[in-house]
């Protein structure tokens, strides 16, 4: 491996910019992500910055069980993040639907809308766990092992 690809790998690991997306979450996980960015846990110390535009981001932090109304926006925003990109599902909702599972208004998690790379379980997870999730996603980005373009789960609602 050449020196240039080594430097590129290192930069991808050291500079994971995140975009936070709420897909119908109760806000519990979003508050924990806020705590993660605040002085006590300081996401910037690992080089992460919160970006307002998905086009500037490397990592999508997604919360919530994916309500039917947010599904199209989630797909569109995921498509707008330039590759290489990773997805961190924060909390139990994006993984399984959590307490909302079986509801006619949610899609029981984001797994059939976008490919998730790292799960951070918890309701809500601790900021340390979110920090560890972002670090893990950054490692996957550096090694090129993200699941971008992977086959998705079938939707419970058929869309």
């Amino acid at each position, binding site marked *: 491996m050449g020196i240039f690809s080594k*430097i*590129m790998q290192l*930069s991808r690991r050291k*500079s994971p910019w995140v975009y936070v997306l709420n897909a119908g979450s109760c806000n519990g996980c979003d508050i924990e992500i806020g705590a993660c960015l605040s*002085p006590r846990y300081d996401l910037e110390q690992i080089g992460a910055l919160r970006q307002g535009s998905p*086009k500037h981001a490397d990592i999508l932090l997604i919360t919530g069980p994916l309500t039917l109304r947010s599904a199209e926006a989630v797909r569109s925003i995921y498509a707008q993040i*330039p590759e290489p990109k990773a997805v961190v599902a924060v909390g139990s909702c994006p993984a399984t639907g959590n307490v909302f599972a079986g509801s006619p208004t949610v899609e029981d998690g984001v797994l059939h809308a976008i490919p998730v790379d790292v799960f951070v379980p918890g309701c809500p997870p601790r900021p340390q766990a979110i920090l560890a999730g972002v670090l893990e996603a950054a490692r996957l980005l550096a090694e090129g092992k993200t699941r971008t373009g992977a086959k998705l789960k079938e939707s419970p609602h058929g869309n």
Partner: protein
Amino acid sequence: MATNFFWQGLLAYFIWPGLLCAALLGWLFLWLARKLIARMQRRFGPPFYQPFFDFVKLLGKRSLVPAGMSPVLYYGLPLVAVISIGLALALLPLPGNGMRPFAGDLILVLYLMEMPAFCDILAGFASRSIYGQVGSSREAALMLGYSLPFLASVIALAIKAGSFRLEDVIAQPFGLVHVLAIIAFVLAVPARLKSNPFSIPNAEQEIVAGAHVEYNGPALALFELAHGLELVAVSLLFGLLFVPVLHNPLAALAAYLAAALVLVVVTSLVAAATARLQIHRAFRFYWTWGAVAALACIVVAVL
């Protein structure tokens, strides 16, 4: 002789004080600003290599050109910004710069230093994003504001020296006009660098990322690089204009860098201590206090 001049020009443009050294210095200054703000917010802050890794990572991302925007404009604007700020840096008569000064180089430097802001404005309008357009119009309005004290402070020194040759302007003895020009210059710097009380064009909580909202990958990397180079150009120009002449080149270089560092630290302190102004308040600030400072230094220079 002609070939010698050619090589010296290339050296000045690409190595010192042009792209290579200025980029390293710019990354150092950008890191310093981020670290200082983080420390003042009781955060740990990023490690010192952060801006370099951000730049390399952005270079390695796939680019998405927004629909309806010509790729020539999309890649051309950040490229023009970097090229022109690099030229401005190459013209600065720092110790070790082989470029020969010529009459009116100060005007050329000022013009080239406006180019990154100009490219930002065009990029925002061309990107067909509503946030980009709002960011561009804010930046254009702010430019009308900060240009008044910024240009007045430099022009006052040029009037005093009776010449628009950067070497003559630098060589004059320190006087009252310098003190007033420093005030006008420092007033203009936060808005020039879009840092906090005047971070109106790229207000991330209101208009996402301003003019850069549709930019990504290598094009965004070039815009970030242009911003770093602009930071170096403004702070080194500050050092050149306001540090009294030293005849030892090493001591002069150290003094210029120290002055540049002081400017970056002061700007970061102001950025951490203040909240964002509304655009009309920023404009009023520059056309009252900025105008007073501008008038004072021009009047003292003419008298």
